[in-house]
């Protein structure tokens, strides 16, 4: 499905009043064969919202979404493949398949966390289905979610150059995030998050990237930093191909703090060199780890969920190489992945 328009870029494409958003927190969905069915509406849903939910279900069923989710959406599709799930978890520790029905997993790909009240905290946001807007596909440079008074507003964005409109489902997601969450391998991503990896850098020591997923409030995407006697631990590292210097600046502070705990070394100039070496070996280690998993997944076949994830890994590797080239980060002899 896709949406095409001739609205000038940047002008409002859709304004959806809050009372047309379909509340989902109390709803219950299931599948019957290859059809999605609403077992129970959210108690707050109005008659109009229930009718809109029924219309969306009709669209989902006409386009065989349950069948697609069962085969391609990694959560439900890999639920009985513990070996593959464990393999993917080496890249994304939070990847989970248990306890989620195909219906819930599919509906989760369509909901927006939102609040009619501007400035509401994340905890006060509810989950909503979005009539009409639901049909717009994702693109990294698509329109962000907007707000006009208490309405959900989407501006027209044509990042592919034609008449197809795109929206950005979620900021700062990489190809693996999108593949695991939404079931598609996306080529428009501009950043890649590091997989869990531990490396050694001469004159610095051991650095571990845990690979957590944190909701960052700033574009600098600061990791949580912990320093033990012999180890620098970073919650996450993001390789942003458009802003490679951000990672350098943020990691250099962490490396400087780590060096300050080690009297044998020091000096900001050295911190810069060591940070460059560190980023280079992190890129290389990510490429190696991703390739190991990609080869395992390709053995499973190029279709279905494993095919989607392996194509996402391919995109992830492309982004890492771009990041290294743009930023001039290449592994040096002083750094290597820890066995």
């Amino acid at each position, binding site marked *: 499905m896709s949406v095409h328009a001739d609205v000038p870029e940047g002008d409002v494409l859709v304004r959806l009043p809050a009372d047309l958003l379909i509340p989902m927190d109390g709803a219950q969905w299931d599948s019957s064969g290859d059809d999605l069915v609403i077992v129970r509406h959210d108690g707050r849903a109005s008659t109009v919202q229930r009718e809109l939910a029924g219309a969306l279900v009709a669209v989902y069923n006409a386009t065989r979404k349950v069948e697609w989710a069962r085969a391609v959406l990694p959560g439900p599709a890999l639920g009985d493949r513990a070996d593959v799930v464990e393999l993917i978890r080496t890249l994304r520790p939070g990847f989970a398949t248990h306890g989620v029905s195909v219906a819930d997993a599919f509906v989760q790909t369509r909901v927006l966390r939102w609040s009619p009240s501007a400035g509401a905290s994340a905890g006060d946001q509810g989950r909503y289905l979005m009539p009409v807007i639901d049909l717009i596909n994702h693109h990294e440079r698509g329109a962000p979610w907007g707000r006009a008074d208490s309405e959900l507003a989407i501006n027209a964005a044509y990042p592919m150059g034609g008449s197809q409109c795109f929206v950005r489902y979620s900021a700062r997601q990489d190809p693996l995030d999108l593949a695991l969450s939404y079931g598609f391998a996306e080529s428009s991503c501009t950043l890649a998050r590091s997989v869990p990896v531990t490396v050694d850098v001469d004159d610095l020591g051991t650095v571990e990237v845990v690979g957590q997923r944190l909701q960052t409030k700033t574009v*600098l995407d*600061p990791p949580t930093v912990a320093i033990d006697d012999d180890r620098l631990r970073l919650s996450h590292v993001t390789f942003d191909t458009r802003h490679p210097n951000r990672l350098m600046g943020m990691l*250099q502070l962490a490396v*400087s*703090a780590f060096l*300050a705990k080690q009297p044998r070394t020091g000096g900001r100039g050295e911190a810069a060199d060591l940070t460059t070496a560190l980023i280079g070996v992190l890129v290389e280690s990510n490429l190696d780890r991703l390739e190991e998993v990609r080869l395992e997944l390709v053995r499973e076949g190029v279709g279905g969920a494993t095919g989607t994830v392996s194509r996402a890994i391919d995109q992830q590797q492309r982004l890492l190489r771009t990041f290294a080239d743009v930023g001039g980060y290449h592994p040096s002899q002083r750094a290597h992945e820890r066995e």
Partner: protein
Amino acid sequence: VNGDRILVRHADVLEAEVDGQRVLMSPKDYAYFGLVDTGAIVWDRIDGETSLDELVVALAAEYDTDPERVRSDVGEFVSALDAAGLLAER
């Protein structure tokens, strides 16, 4: 925040400019702390010799702003610096 307090930066705070944004790193827990707008102005004037009251008076005069509002904003910022471990006792 006590107006007589002499504001002193913690000696081990790390500072960098990252992609045009000023960032501090706390020596307490290695948390990043972004400096924007008035926060950056206040941080630049923390010299280990100026009291909070003196800072408020200077900023209110320089920016032609109500001193009580400046006191509130600066006090809030100083509390955040304290919580982040970015200030030291004199």
